[in-house]
């Protein structure tokens, strides 16, 4: 008996380990992320109709008629959002504006990130001068440069200058009500869709699981969706 006892113990631990993995994974996937089940049959090709509207007009790249719309709820200070940025950028280039539309929604995680709100303000202020995406790229691509800075204002003003904004106007817009309202409305839309973290991406109104945001998986999902909406 003593000879086989260790093997029994090992088998029990292996079984318990596998069971735990299966149980935790199932528990995580059953956690409701969206309050209402997304309609599966309706061919949604524009901004999903469920939830609050969000800021209008939304910041969007690509054609409004594109069959696939990705709506990202992002926080410029969040490292995984920074990692997602080049993935989305290269997909947008690869798929083309006729096939893929990308919408960005402000979802600054306050107080987790000290400068996320300031970054959202900067992006929206740039948007008022028609350069939202330029500032968006700047913020994500230089995330490490400002993430740990004490005062981000001069850094963001430097970015504003770099992308050719009227800096004085940018400074005024930064604290304007319209900028604040846009961030508030995007946040409201996020909350109404059950967004609790960033990045959260919806593809034609359905949430893309975080693990599917890897480049190959996301590309496959988009291709599937394109095939479904010829």
């Amino acid at each position, binding site marked *: 008996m003593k000879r086989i006892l260790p093997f029994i113990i090992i088998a029990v631990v292996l079984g318990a380990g596998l069971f735990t993995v299966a149980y935790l994974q199932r528990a995580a996937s059953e956690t409701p992320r969206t309050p209402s089940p997304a309609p599966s049959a309706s061919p949604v090709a524009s901004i999903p109709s469920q939830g609050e509207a969000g800021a209008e007009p939304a910041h969007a790249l690509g054609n409004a008629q594109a069959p696939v719309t990705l709506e990202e709820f992002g926080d410029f200070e969040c*490292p995984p959002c920074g990692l997602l940025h080049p993935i989305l950028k290269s997909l947008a280039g690869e798929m083309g504006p006729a096939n893929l539309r990308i919408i960005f929604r402000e979802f600054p995680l306050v107080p987790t990130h000290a400068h996320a709100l300031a970054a959202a303000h900067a992006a929206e202020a740039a948007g008022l001068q028609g350069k939202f995406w330029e500032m968006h790229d700047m913020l994500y691509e230089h995330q490490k440069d400002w993430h740990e800075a004490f005062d981000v204002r001069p850094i963001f003003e430097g970015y504003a200058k770099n992308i050719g904004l009227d800096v004085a106007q940018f400074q005024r817009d930064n604290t304007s009500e319209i900028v604040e309202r846009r961030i508030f409305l995007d946040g409201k839309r996020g909350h109404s869709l059950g967004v609790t973290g960033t990045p959260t991406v919806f593809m034609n109104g359905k949430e893309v699981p975080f693990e599917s945001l890897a480049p190959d998986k996301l590309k496959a999902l988009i291709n599937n969706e394109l095939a479904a909406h010829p």
Partner: protein
Amino acid sequence: MLYGIAALVSLVGLADSIYLTVEHLTGQSVRCTITSGCSEVLSSPYATVRGYPLAALGAIAYFVFFSLATLAAFGYRSTSKLLTPLVAAMFLTTLWLFYLQAFVIQHFCQFCLLSALVTTTLTALVIFARRTKQ
């Protein structure tokens, strides 16, 4: 006796790495959230090896260690020899990961530190077990 203790300690490492693997696979802690912040460590490119979560490799290593240590504790002498290279590899990996957290990512993750503590304890136990036998 020492191998029995090592087997029990490795269970802590196994549970820790299983937890990290599931977190990684379901994206719970990898993304940033309102309540818990985000893990710079788990969302870094160093958290995966060829697309596989590093934590899963840790779980396999802890399970192999547990199996060998259990067998050694029950008198299978030959397995104790295999523990030395295994624990050496685990300890070197831990040192590398600690370096990455301290100097490259510049953030520590508490569950990763628990794993580092477990591996260090296991290394000490294996060295001690070999010494006392000699």
